[in-house]
C-alpha cells in the first residue's frame, strides 16, 4: 500500500476501518443484558406485562362477574377447593372472589394506569422541557418556576386534592397522576437538552440553516432520550405505587375496577384475624412489580450513562 506524494486524496482502506459493527441499539442490548440481576428483573417484568395484558384469558375466574362468584367461597385459605371443583391457588377474599384472578385483573389496572399516565406525562413534560431548553431566557425561567412549584408539593397531597375535586374513575386518576408527574420529565429533559444544545452538532445544524423544529425533534430529542428512558421506568414504578396508595386510601378507582391497592385495602380488615393472604398476595405482587421496574431502571441508567466506565 505505498503512497506517493503526487497521489490525490486516497480513499480510506476498508479493513482498518470499522471499529464496531453494531448499531447503537445492538450495543445497548448487549450492555444491558450483561447484568444478571437486571436480566432476571427484565424477565419478571415481561412476565408481569404478559399477565396484565392477558388477564381475561388466563384467569380461572372473572372476579367481577357476579355470576361466577359465590359468597360461600369467602375467606377460603390458599389451596382450598371451590364448591365448583377447582382450586383457589391463592385463596379468596372477603366476597368470595378468587384472589389470583383478582390479582391478575388488579395488575392490569395498576400497570395500565401507571404506564398510561407515565406516557402522557412524558409527552407533555418532554415538550415543555425541550421548549424551555431550546428557547432559554424568559420562557425557560417561567417554565422552570412552575416546575419548581409543582415539585415542591407532596405528590400524595396534590393527588388527593385533585381526586377530591374530580371524583372517581380510571380517567380521573390518570389525569391526577399526569398532573403530579409531568414536572419530573420536564426537568430531566431540560437538563439533558441544555447539555446537548451546546454541543457542536447542534451548532452545525444551525450553521446548515435547518429549521428550529428539525433541530429540536431530530437532533436534540433523540439524544436526550437516554436519561428520559430511565426516568420513565422509575416514574412508572412511582406512579403505580402512588395509585396503589390512593386506592388504599379509598380515593381514585371505583370498586368495580380495583387495582392492587384496593385489593390490599380490602384485605386490611382481615389481616389480624388470620386471613392474611387477602392483603398479602396482592402486596407481594405490587412489591415484585415495583422492584423489577426499579432494577430494570437502574441498569438502564448505568448502561445509558456515557460517563460510566464499563
Amino acid at each position, binding site marked *: *500500500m*505505498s*503512497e*506517493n*506524494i503526487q497521489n490525490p486524496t*486516497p480513499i*480510506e*482502506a476498508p479493513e*482498518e476501518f470499522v*471499529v464496531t459493527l453494531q448499531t447503537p441499539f445492538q450495543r445497548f442490548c448487549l450492555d444491558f443484558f450483561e447484568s444478571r440481576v437486571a436480566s432476571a428483573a427484565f424477565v419478571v417484568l415481561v412476565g408481569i406485562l404478559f399477565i396484565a395484558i392477558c388477564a381475561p384469558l388466563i384467569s380461572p375466574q372473572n372476579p367481577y362477574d357476579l355470576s361466577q362468584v359465590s359468597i360461600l367461597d369467602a375467606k377460603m385459605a390458599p389451596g382450598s377447593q371451590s364448591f365448583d371443583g377447582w382450586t383457589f391457588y391463592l385463596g379468596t377474599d372477603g366476597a368470595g372472589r378468587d384472589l389470583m384472578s383478582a390479582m391478575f385483573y388488579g395488575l392490569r389496572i395498576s400497570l395500565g394506569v401507571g404506564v398510561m399516565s407515565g406516557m402522557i406525562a412524558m409527552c407533555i413534560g418532554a415538550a415543555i422541557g425541550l421548549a424551555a431548553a431550546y428557547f432559554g431566557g424568559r420562557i425557560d425561567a417561567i417554565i422552570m418556576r412552575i416546575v419548581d412549584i409543582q415539585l415542591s408539593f407532596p405528590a400524595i397531597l396534590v393527588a388527593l386534592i385533585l381526586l377530591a375535586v374530580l371524583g372517581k374513575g380510571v380517567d380521573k386518576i390518570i389525569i391526577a397522576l399526569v398532573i403530579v408527574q409531568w414536572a419530573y420529565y420536564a426537568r430531566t429533559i431540560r437538563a439533558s437538552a441544555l447539555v446537548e444544545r451546546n454541543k457542536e452538532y447542534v451548532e452545525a445544524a444551525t450553521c446548515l440553516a435547518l429549521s428550529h423544529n428539525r433541530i429540536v425533534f431530530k437532533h436534540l430529542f433523540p439524544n436526550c432520550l437516554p436519561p428520559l428512558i430511565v426516568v420513565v421506568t422509575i416514574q412508572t414504578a412511582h406512579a403505580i405505587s402512588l395509585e396503589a396508595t390512593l386506592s388504599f386510601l379509598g380515593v381514585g378507582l371505583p370498586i368495580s375496577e380495583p387495582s392492587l391497592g384496593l385489593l390490599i385495602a380490602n384485605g386490611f380488615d382481615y389481616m389480624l384475624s388470620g386471613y392474611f393472604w387477602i392483603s398479602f398476595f396482592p402486596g407481594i405482587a405490587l412489591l415484585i412489580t415495583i422492584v423489577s421496574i426499579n432494577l430494570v431502571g437502574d441498569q438502564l441508567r448505568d448502561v445509558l450513562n456515557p460517563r460510566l466506565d464499563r
Partner: protein
Amino acid sequence: MSVKDTSPTLEVRNLQTHFFTKAGDAKAVDGVSFSVGKGEIMGLVGESGSGKSVTGFSIIGLVDPPGNVVGGEVLYNGKNLVGLPDEQMRQLRGNRIAMIFQDPMMTLNPVLRVDTQMVETILAHDPSVSKQDALARSRDALGRVGIPAPDERLRSYPHQFSGGMRQRVAIAIALLNKPDLIIADEPTTALDVTIQGQILYEAQKLCRETGTSMIWITHDLAVVAGLADSICVMYGGRVVEQGLINDVLDHPVHPYTRGLLGSVPGANSRGTRLYQIPGMAPSLLNLPQGCAFQARCPRADEACLVEPQITEPIAGRGVRCCHPHLNAEEEIGA
C-alpha cells in the same frame, strides 16, 4: 549534551504491559527498552495508541486493572520496580520518582488548599519535618516554578488558578521531595503557546540546576526538539527509533520517524503538500504479524512479517526496522 556519566537513573528493559479487556488483549507496551541518565531529558514521542502514556504509568506503577505489567524490568538505581510490593512503591512515588499529568486536576484535589496538599506531600514521605519547615519548602517550590506572591497563592484553592498556573503548581508538588526522576505526561498539550513556553523554561532550568532526569511524553516533535537531549519514538506499543535528539531529527532512519517528520508543517516549505503517512495506526487489540508499521510503510515487503528486533546500525542509535534508511540522501517517502 549526553549526560550518561554514571550509571543511568532509570533503565527500562523489555517492558511489557498488556490490557486484558473483554474485546481481547491489548498489548499497549510490547518490549520497550531505554535508559535515562542523570540530568538527562528524554523525549518519549508517539501518536495516540502508541503506548507512550502507558509506558509512563507502568514505570511509576500506576497501571490499574484490566491492565498489568506482564514482563520486563524497570531498574531505578539498580532496583527493579516491576513487582515491587505496594508499600515500597508508594515510598518511591512522589518522593524519588514523581509524575506530572496532562490535566493538573489529576494532581490537585479541588477541595483542599494548595498549602495543605503540598505539606501533605512532604509529610507523607518524611514525617519528621515540622509543619513550618514544610510550609517554607512549599513556598520555595512555588517560587522556583515562577509563581508570583507565593504566600498568598499557598492559601488558595486550585480553582482560583488559571490552567497554566495549575500546571506549575503540579510541577512544584512534583519537585517538593527533590526526586531523581520526573515523568511528565503531555503536560503542556492543553496550554497556550506562551504559557507552554514558560513551563518548558521552568522544566529546562530545573533539570540543569538539580540534575533531575526527566521523561517528557508528548506527540509534539517540535517541543521535544527544543527541550530534550535524547528521543525515543514509539509506534504500536514498541520503540521504533531512539538516539540523541539531533541525530534522530536530522537523520531519521526508521520510515515512521521519517514520515512523521515529513508530516509536520514546519519542516516543509510553505504551501506544498505535506507528506502524509497513508492509513491509520493499528488497533492495539489487533496488531499485525511482524512489524507494526508494515501496512503503512513504503518499504514493506515479506521480510517485515517477521518482527524486527532493535538493532544498532549507527553508534548510539537504536532502530526496529527491516529496511532502515541508512542512506541519508534518500527522499522522505521513497
